[in-house]
């Protein structure tokens, strides 16, 4: 008996379930772009080297080009299309727009998804290669431009928008910190 080369799966994308039969070789990236018409997630290299296809799976950033669709069943996928609340942009999106953190816009969805994860990873106290003191008792590092540059380095931008990207992430981080302080007060 020939082995099956395709299987029916249900993917949860931006909170919506999608049931479809996929070729086992199909990546999450290609399912999003070619099957579900969610083309906001970009294909820059298709081999995990540029970050353009960054999405969040169960809240963590991954490159969708290296994730097989069949292995994504039962996990919550968030793409760039799932960030804004109606007409209201997510603060990270708004910061990228206001500070011109992009030019051609092709790496932008991946940058924004990465930035969201950077803010969460930092809030969770994760150090980076740019962190001077990684001892737990040192506490979480300040999210300096150097920290942001390091943490955003998995996302290439060939137009050269890194300077405003760092500024946009810093701005969004500042807003997030303010919101946290307000809710704590």
């Amino acid at each position, binding site marked *: 008996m020939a082995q099956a080369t395709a299987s029916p799966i249900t993917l949860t994308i931006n909170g919506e379930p999608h049931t479809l039969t996929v070729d086992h070789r199909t990546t999450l990236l290609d399912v999003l772009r070619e099957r579900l018409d969610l083309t906001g997630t970009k294909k820059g290299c298709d081999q995990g080297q*540029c970050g353009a296809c960054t999405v969040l799976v169960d809240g963590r950033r991954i490159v969708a080009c290296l994730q097989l669709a069949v292995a994504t069943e039962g996990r919550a996928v968030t793409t760039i299309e799932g960030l804004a609340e109606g007409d209201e*942009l997510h603060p990270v999106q708004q910061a990228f727009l206001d500070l011109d953190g992009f030019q051609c816009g*092709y790496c932008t969805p991946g940058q924004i998804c990465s930035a969201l994860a950077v803010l969460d990873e930092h809030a969770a106290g994760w150090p980076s290669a740019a962190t001077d003191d990684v001892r737990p008792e040192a506490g979480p590092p300040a999210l300096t431009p150097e920290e942001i540059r390091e943490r955003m380095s998995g996302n290439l931008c060939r137009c050269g928008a890194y*300077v405003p990207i760092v500024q946009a992430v810093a701005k969004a981080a500042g807003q997030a910190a303010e919101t946290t302080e307000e809710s704590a007060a």
Partner: protein
Amino acid sequence: MTTTAQPPTVGAAHTRVEGRDKVTGAARYASEQPFDQLVHSWLVLSTVARGRVRKVGEEAVRAMPGVLAVLHHGNAPRLTTDYASMLGAPDPTVALFQHDRVPHAGWPVALVVAETPEQAREAAESLVVEYVEEPHDVAFHAGRPDAYVPEDGGAVATKGDLEAELAASSVVVDASYTTPEQHHSAMEPHAATARWEGGRLEVVDSNQGSMWVADELAKLFSLDPSSVRVRSEHIGGAFGSKGVRPHQVAAAMAATVLQRPVRLALTRRQTFAVTGYRSPTAQRVRLGADADGRLRAFGHEALNLTSTLRPFVETSAALGRVLYDARAHHTVHRLVDVDMPTPTWMRAPGEAPGSFAVESALDELAERLGMDPIALRARNEPAVGPLSGLPFSSRNLLGCFEEGARRFGWAERDPRPRMRREGRWLLGTGTAAATYPSGAAPSTASVTAEADGTFTVRISAADVGTGARTALTLIAAEALDVAPERVDVRIGDSDFGPAWVAGGSMGTRSWALAVTSAVGELRGRLALADGEIPPEGITARTDTAGLLAELAKKERHSFGAQFAEVAVDVATGEIRVRRMLGIFAAGRIVNPLTARSQLIGGMTWGISMALHEEAVRDEASGSQLGADFASYHVAANADVPLIEADWLEDPVPDDPVGIKGIGEIGIVGVAAAISNAAWHATGVRHRDLPLRPDRVLRAEAEAVGD
């Protein structure tokens, strides 16, 4: 049209009109438009560097699941390829599947079309192509005996006796520089979808000029120009690589054969092979000066490679014809033919590698003279074009240096090298001049006054990330004296008529002139209509060919001064750029927000060129080693410090636009400024790019060994 005072449009910061679509993922790029009955294709590239295709094993592949067609030289439709387009002779790669010759590794030899991308890929990777191999040659280096001066009017420019002036000089610099093969690496790989619709060939593409691509496709397929439509609304970067390339031709061929919509998205690896690149260069600069720094001799010889198919000149020796005068001034370009793909324009073609050599040599001359590098440049500031004798339309290079020096803190710099140390780092600063031509080309545009009080501009322009659409919106709004929100600028559609491409830093300048002159026409028509606008609106259309023909012949260029501070760890060879400042005189700045991004983006390219980018050619196979982002390094976020870019007022009195291009000048001079800073930090000169750790280590070892 209202005459009430509007807030400033041109000159005020404005976020991108398509920005919201880009940050939400709603902007659709070339491979993202849905089509009924769409099929997918995959290109097969030659694995040999020279020879003939003996056999394409299509039978086995045709039997694979989902496969619809295998196109190759034995069965592909015939094309007309001996034409000239608005940018001259076509790139040789567009002559797709027309013969069995393989002129270089990565030459397209077949296209596989299938129902799904997975099926197309599997079939393409299974396709067995047999070759008759011939010996190949991809070795590029200075001093090749077969180098020749191309038959191109601009290849040579001379005045005076160079050897005599060198002999009479108090100080002479004679130095050789190299720059490596570099690739555009736009984040969006080239992609096109082609279909026949209503008797027309329609192509959704990613390009720098939809009219350019439509015109060439019509010529290639011997179609009436009106029966080809090319659209390219959002483009994920281009940098010179997104002209007419195999992807549009292959998709159009397959759509013609199958009569279904066909998509071809190049893989990242394929973009390295078939979409052009910047040739490596080997350059020799000879400068001779009097003791006071005045140049007696300026000599620049630049060698680059080209394919065996077509000469392509990387005009590295051109910028000296603008920047510096000397009694004897000799510049020449030479080529060597090898079995490699044809190079093409890449951001600041000529000026980018040329400025590395010239601006490094100027720094060496300043050192030998014991002069400040900025003072040396001031000493040699020409009053008119050094070779043309024509006046400059505007030239404020020294103003850029003065403002830059003030803001960068240049006066506090100790000119002696290797004087600053901070922990494991040696610190240094460097500077360099920048210039880029400010051209304009004929374009057409239309402006429609709509019945609802809004305005629609149509122009076959391309926004490759430059902010051109936003700039044109502001320009149209200013000319119409209305708020930008009432202006809808539509671009990227060949049906809008002929227009210049997004290239040569000429796009926004050329298109702005077309838009403002169309608005002028419209004002006249509206006056006649006496305020009555019919439901279809009132449209005015113009062509700027006449206006541009009247423009006085002058030296028209942008200028700038680049400053860099670097830290060098001579124990590891690592170089970090700590800060950069660029001050530019680039005409009227339309949108400060996006203009700053453009300039900083160019400077970021300069860092990448100085420290990272280098494609390595394997002489044994003739292929590029590691054609991917793991081996071809472009600057990542952590490589780029805070970069500042700013500009001076730069009025151009006789110019009908006043805008100069800013897409390319940002990269010019940066690699030299960084290399000069590395010398200042360590006392060692680097004349080969990129400044790799191993080169820094070797230089240090040699310096210590001296």
